[in-house]
């Protein structure tokens, strides 16, 4: 699926090493918008879950230092331009985790006049974590699944406009509509 040189031939070990280092140093930009942010905070800061043991550093000073953005909570039409603008400031390769029903599809606010029906309407989402809110374990599984993808991907394809099927945490294989 790729034209990337790093996954081919003699340079493959270099690509693997690069992926290995990227996967364990994900600088994460927190975008906590609602109650899901509490569960995200539990996964980030609580000693019980402690996402930093997976190499996720949740404290970049700016989106320009971040590799990963986590949208956790209800995206409103008023907030949507700000999300898009800060997402665009992140350097490639960048990844998006959509956490919770609201960020996935609007959730309980599906008929609201002010809620965006899913953050994937404005930015491409790599991992959907379902739940209302998801438990911290579900969020951490989303991080791990994203790390598995990063390990196996061609680093160049992120710049070449490649296409990725989204990951849905907890979905059986073949259950996700492309």
């Amino acid at each position, binding site marked *: 699926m790729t034209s990337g040189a790093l996954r081919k031939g003699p340079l493959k070990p270099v690509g693997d090493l690069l992926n290995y280092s990227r996967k364990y140093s994900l600088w994460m930009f927190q975008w906590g918008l609602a109650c899901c942010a509490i569960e995200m905070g539990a996964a980030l800061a609580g000693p019980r879950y402690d996402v930093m043991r997976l190499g996720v550093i949740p404290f970049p000073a700016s989106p320009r230092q971040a590799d990963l953005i986590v949208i956790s909570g209800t995206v409103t*039409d*008023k907030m949507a331009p700000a999300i898009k603008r800060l997402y665009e400031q992140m350097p490639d390769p960048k990844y998006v985790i959509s956490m919770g029903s609201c960020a996935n599809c609007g959730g309980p606010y*599906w*008929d*609201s*006049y*002010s809620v965006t*029906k899913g953050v994937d309407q404005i930015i491409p989402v790599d991992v959907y974590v379902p739940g209302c809110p998801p438990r911290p374990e579900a969020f951490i599984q989303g991080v791990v699944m994203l790390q598995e993808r990063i390990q196996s991907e061609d680093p160049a394809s992120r710049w070449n406009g490649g296409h990725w099927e989204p990951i849905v945490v907890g979905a059986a294989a073949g259950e996700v509509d492309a």
Partner: protein
Amino acid sequence: MSDDGAPDAAEGATSMSDSNVALLERISTALGSDAIVESVESLGDLVVRVRADRWRDAAQACRTELGFDYLSFVGGIDWQPAPSADEGSGDTSAPVQPKEQTYGVAGSAGRFQVFARVASTHVPRVGLTLKVDLDEESPAVASWTSVYPGADWHERETWEMYGFDFHGHPSLRHLYLPSGFEGHPLRKDFPLLAREVKPWPGLVDVEGMPGDASDETEAPDSAGGGDA
């Protein structure tokens, strides 16, 4: 629950606590009893409906004469009933909501009202709720921002949610909604487009269990049989 404002209610202080009678007396003196359309005690609290052209004067009287230095909120009311459950955009709360137009404790001349609550930071548990009727065609009332500066954002929100105009407000701009938003979403006739496409799922009182005769989907034993 009077239908339409009986203007004699300023004197009708029946079943009011002594403190509320005294409070009503004070605001009647400060404002003039002709400005008060109706006054009711509700849940121990005095609710006074004032004439629309005296709305700003009422605020001034509350602040200077009555010593209510704290504005709790300014908000709007649309008394029109919500869309009923048999309409596509209706919701489950409709059966417990009135089908006919009702007007709350102090009554109303029409569909739209603005109401506000003021209180004192010096005397505990003393406050006053004020209401004013608005014209249905072009709802507008005087702004309170020159009396209570804190009314600014409350009136901006009421303006964008209900479309009420506040004369004398320094800048009626969108506060919560995106700047290009059309319509006034807290009006009861605001269409929820998502519900036009897909009816509110809560309209079904009790959803059929999978496998029931009423269930439209295929029965599970015919779909995935043979796993027993």
